[in-house]
């Protein structure tokens, strides 16, 4: 066969290929793909005490599950808006896939349920426990010991976020108080009395 004909055919095949792959196929391909819809749920939060004396400590156990699709990353955040130091809490036990992270005031943290694409500066400490990935049906829990720094009302914020955040089902709770990350939290509290 004429070599120029073969080369020309190869060139034509290349043009057709790029037209198909770059412009024709992506749209139908995209229709077969969908964003997963993780649905994190805090299944239980238990505090060891309602009232403690200053200098003492209480424990908190948070359990969470994913009742939706697989999450690339799902996290449970336990924050302490009255505290100034992340070491107000100590991790006693956990079964998350990754080590829990301590967020200190001044640290940059993701906000608005979009991961690290929108960053804000933390005003108060938190502990973030995550599993990456978090498959449907998997449940994880974390036990913390907390020693409040001052007397009065000691508040604890708890939430769970599934990423990619593909809708309102991807965060827990669905509404209520908004925290420093513009994300909904459930509030718990312990009364700290004079020692």
């Amino acid at each position, binding site marked *: 066969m004429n070599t120029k004909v073969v080369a020309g055919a*190869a*060139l034509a095949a290349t043009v057709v290929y790029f037209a198909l792959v770059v412009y024709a196929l992506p749209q139908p391909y995209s229709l077969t793909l969908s964003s997963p819809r993780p649905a994190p749920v805090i299944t239980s939060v238990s505090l060891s005490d309602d009232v403690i004396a200053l200098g003492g400590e209480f424990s908190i156990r948070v359990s969470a599950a994913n009742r939706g699709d697989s999450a*690339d990353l799902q996290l449970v955040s336990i924050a302490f808006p009255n505290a100034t130091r992340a070491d107000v809490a100590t991790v006693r036990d956990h079964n998350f896939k990754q080590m829990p992270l301590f967020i200190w005031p001044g640290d940059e943290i993701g906000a608005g349920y979009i991961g690290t*694409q929108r960053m804000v500066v933390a005003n108060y400490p938190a502990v973030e426990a995550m599993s990456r*990935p978090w498959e449907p049906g998997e449940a994880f829990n974390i036990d913390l010991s907390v020693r409040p720094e001052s007397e009065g009302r000691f508040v604890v914020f708890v939430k769970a976020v599934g990423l990619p955040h593909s809708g309102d089902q991807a965060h827990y709770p669905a509404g209520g108080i908004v925290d420093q990350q513009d994300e909904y939290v459930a509030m718990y509290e312990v009364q700290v009395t004079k020692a």
Partner: protein
Amino acid sequence: MNYQRGLDSMHESARRLVAGYVIVSLGILLAISGGTWDVTNHLLNKPETFFSPPHAALYSGTGAALAGAIIVISTSRATKRTDWPAKLVLVGISLLFAAGPIDFAWHSTFGLDGLLSPPHSVLVSGMVASSMGAAIGIATAYPSLQRKAPPLPLIIAAILPVWLSAAGAIHMFSLPFSKTGFYDFNPDPLAGAILATIGFPVITAAVMAASSTLFGRRFGAATAIASSFILVGTLTSILPNDALWSTIPLYITAIVPLACADTILSRWKSPYSVLVAGAIIGLAFIVLYYPLITHTYNKELEKDRTVWASLTALIYFDMLGTVFLLVAVPAACTGIVGAVVGHRMAQRAQLAVLK
């Protein structure tokens, strides 16, 4: 009698050299495949320890490469002649082994590490140096042993690790995976995108044109090496992420333009054939380096969008048309440059062997 014994001894040395270089190449192939798998593993599972299956593959490959390097160096010493490919292998292997303890210490100190880090830079430099040394060693030692060009499997074993290592180096300096809680080595998004647009077409076209030339401009070598690259990419970058499985057929089609380029190189004996083939190969990079390039271009085009592992394919298809329009001309031009350089380098290697 003595003359015959001398010839036998030379043949034995050349045979051992070729074997040593091939073991180095295969070791680096395993190591760089483990490295690419490690990148995917970091995206999916965020491993926190040094001891992970991809690291096991990476360092097993490094061990194999060391064994090959020992054969090369001991054979060179026995013949009292250490050629520069052997020296390059030695430098590369030394870098690889220096990187191991540094990487372990880095993981122990900083936990999760970024893609671009001092130990990883040393590691990839070692892979590039030793794979290049081994490839040149095979290209020069084999013809002196058999009086003919290396067979296709040997060309693939020699060149594929060079291609993968060079691609790994470009990924390292273009992907936004190097920011951790301790340091931020992420490239500027635009600089990363420019590096990818220039670097990937150049190395792809250079490797394919060189393969074709080393194989006597017959059809098959360039296509076979591209198929091997696609196989490694499928195994290490796509298969571990089940959200990407449905895109494997599309990824495999990257072989179509590359086989067309190989056809042009083998059937059209005009000086322009290298240029046309280079342009085609350059353009194909946009499919060939999926899925990782999604992160590179997304960082520049859609700064507020996170490429989660499960969304990679969706985002890739969403941006493909726009990215192709932006990179088509530079990718074709740099592909031409790469093809010309690769073709000439292979011609020089062949001439050097003939001399």
